[in-house]
């Protein structure tokens, strides 16, 4: 592998695979930390009284083997898509999650889109108008954005816009009476668009608006702050001053000379912001009854349904890992220096 980019990619992918293994180890160790006995949780009262049945059950589930062997069994199960069975829905966790993932991707995707547009836009404005009124206003607003408890804001937004003003539709992804479009991507807005169902599209966008905006507020604040400092840093560079001095129009300087180098730190933060969006879904979906991973996590956490909680941890951890891998690769493509370091 002579190309530095290829070497960089391979190194990143190997790291990601190791981290994915680490994630499985974390959830495995945490599951085994639990004081509760899995046998008691799964067998009935009468079966528990019979030592033969208990021993048989433990042997069937590999619980009589040493922990490292149990971990390998657990890994093997994971590779076959076995995330365990939810104690609450009595269905395989993988089935539950595969239904919930598209809903969350739609919500988080909409939120990151809004955050990137507004966050980067506000950040650039604040940097260009440094120390003027608009900079100060944006600074306070972005600080408020990162200080609001998401779960509380979701509740307030639901109360004000749905319950009082009745501007937004209620909970769920589309109006209750509506038949969903044929499933292609699982994202209702995209599927509605593909099948030409305009009524579903407008309903889906309406339902998406409030939770996506609530979720986006934190990331907008985060991105505004980082974009501002990234752009300020570039604005102070000599080559920007030189570009200005030779009379290039402001727009050219901004887009060609300032935004491209500023984009590198912004992309890193966007990756992190996606992590906080995934965190936020747990707190927002429950309030808006959005049938995604977040609501599933909320239900599993409140009922201490451990296999389901661990499944969420595992899946979200891996999704986040993939996003970070993509961000790292983008980073290497934009900034050649990263590949060699």
């Amino acid at each position, binding site marked *: 592998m002579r190309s530095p980019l290829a070497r960089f990619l391979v190194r990143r992918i190997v790291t990601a695979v190791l*981290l994915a293994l680490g*994630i499985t180890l974390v959830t495995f160790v945490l599951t085994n930390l639990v004081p509760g006995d899995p046998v008691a949780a799964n067998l009935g009262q009468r079966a528990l009284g019979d030592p033969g049945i208990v021993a048989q059950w433990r042997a069937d589930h590999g619980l009589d083997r040493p922990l490292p062997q149990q971990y390998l069994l657990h890994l093997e199960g994971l590779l076959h898509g076995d995330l365990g069975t939810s104690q609450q829905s009595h269905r395989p966790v993988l089935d539950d999650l595969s239904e919930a993932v598209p809903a969350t991707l739609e919500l988080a995707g909409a939120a990151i889109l809004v955050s990137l547009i507004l966050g980067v836009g506000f950040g650039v404005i604040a940097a260009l108008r440094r120390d003027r009124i608009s900079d100060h206003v944006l600074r306070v607003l972005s600080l408020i954005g990162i*200080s609001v*408890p998401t779960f*509380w804001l979701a509740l*307030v937004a639901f109360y004000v816009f749905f319950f009082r003003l009745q501007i937004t539709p209620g909970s769920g992804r589309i109006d209750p009476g509506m038949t969903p479009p044929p499933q292609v991507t699982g994202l209702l807005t995209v599927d509605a668009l593909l099948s030409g169902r305009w009524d579903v599209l407008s309903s889906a966008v309406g339902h998406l608006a409030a939770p996506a905006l609530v979720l986006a507020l934190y990331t907008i604040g985060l991105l505004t702050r980082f974009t501002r400092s990234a752009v300020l840093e570039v604005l102070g560079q000599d080559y920007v001053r030189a570009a200005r001095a030779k009379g290039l129009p402001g727009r050219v300087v901004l887009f060609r000379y300032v935004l491209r180098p500023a984009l590198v730190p912004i992309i890193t933060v966007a990756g992190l912001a996606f992590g906080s969006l995934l965190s936020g879904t747990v707190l927002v979906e429950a309030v808006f009854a959005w049938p995604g991973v977040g609501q599933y996590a*909320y239900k599993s956490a409140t009922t201490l349904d451990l296999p389901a*909680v661990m499944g969420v941890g595992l899946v*979200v*951890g891996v999704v986040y890992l993939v996003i970070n891998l993509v961000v790292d690769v983008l980073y290497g493509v934009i900034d050649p220096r990263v590949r060699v370091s």
Partner: protein
Amino acid sequence: MKRAGLFARTRVSRLPQAWRRPLAIVGTVVALIWIVVALAAPVLAPHDPLAQELPRLAPPGPGHWLGTDQLGRDILSRIMYGARVSIPLTLLLVALSVVIGGLLGACAGYFGRWVDETIMRLADLVFAFPTVILAMVVAAALGASLGNAVLAVLVVAWPAYARVTRGLVLGVREREFVLSGRLLGFSAWRSLRVDVLPNVTGPVLVLATLDIGTALLLLSGLSFLGLGAKPPSPEWGAMVAGGVEVFDSWWVATFPGLAILTVVLAFNFLGDTLRDALDPRTARAIKERAL
């Protein structure tokens, strides 16, 4: 190193100016008010935070300024007592993260090799999860209680300090005054304590102030999920969760949420001010290493 020198100088000359800005004043005043409320809650609170009286779900008005909840408990009094739960726990949490993360990071940076590898790969593993998700997983595994929620937040919070401290320690480790200390026969621990750590504390403190808000949001979020404080504890996140059940009585959830918001905002204002007050280059270094 220049950074340490600059750091010392700017702190003296710039601090007063930065602290005269409106954000700093608002942040300080609000934080002080909350600390007073937390300390004096038994004197200030008009009612017993746990007493269940009629009327239930009374809207804000005379007698119950912020209304009562579904069990007829006075919300204002519960918020005041809640400050005694949330604020000290959050401060303790951040202090512990600074100490644990700082020590681990300092060891990683100072000793290098396998110590560095082990600690930093562990930190990477924590960073591989979105924070609320990992905290939720840990809290669920340990069992729902406020203590376990604190532990869960601690698990996700220490690595940021480890990274920052490690980076700063790497910066000073090879400098002459550290090397000459070692040549004079300082033990590794003494050199770390006497020569290295004092050069690292300033930037770490900035990060810690900015982190107080994040920690409170995370802790109250876990309580909201039912993984933290147990009823009838007047913890703010749990109080907001209680408001979900009685949706049209808006005051039940709104006021505890505002309490969280104002505390987080105050500490974020303070953290921002502190960062600006210090050497901008140090601030930049913190930001880069925290990522």
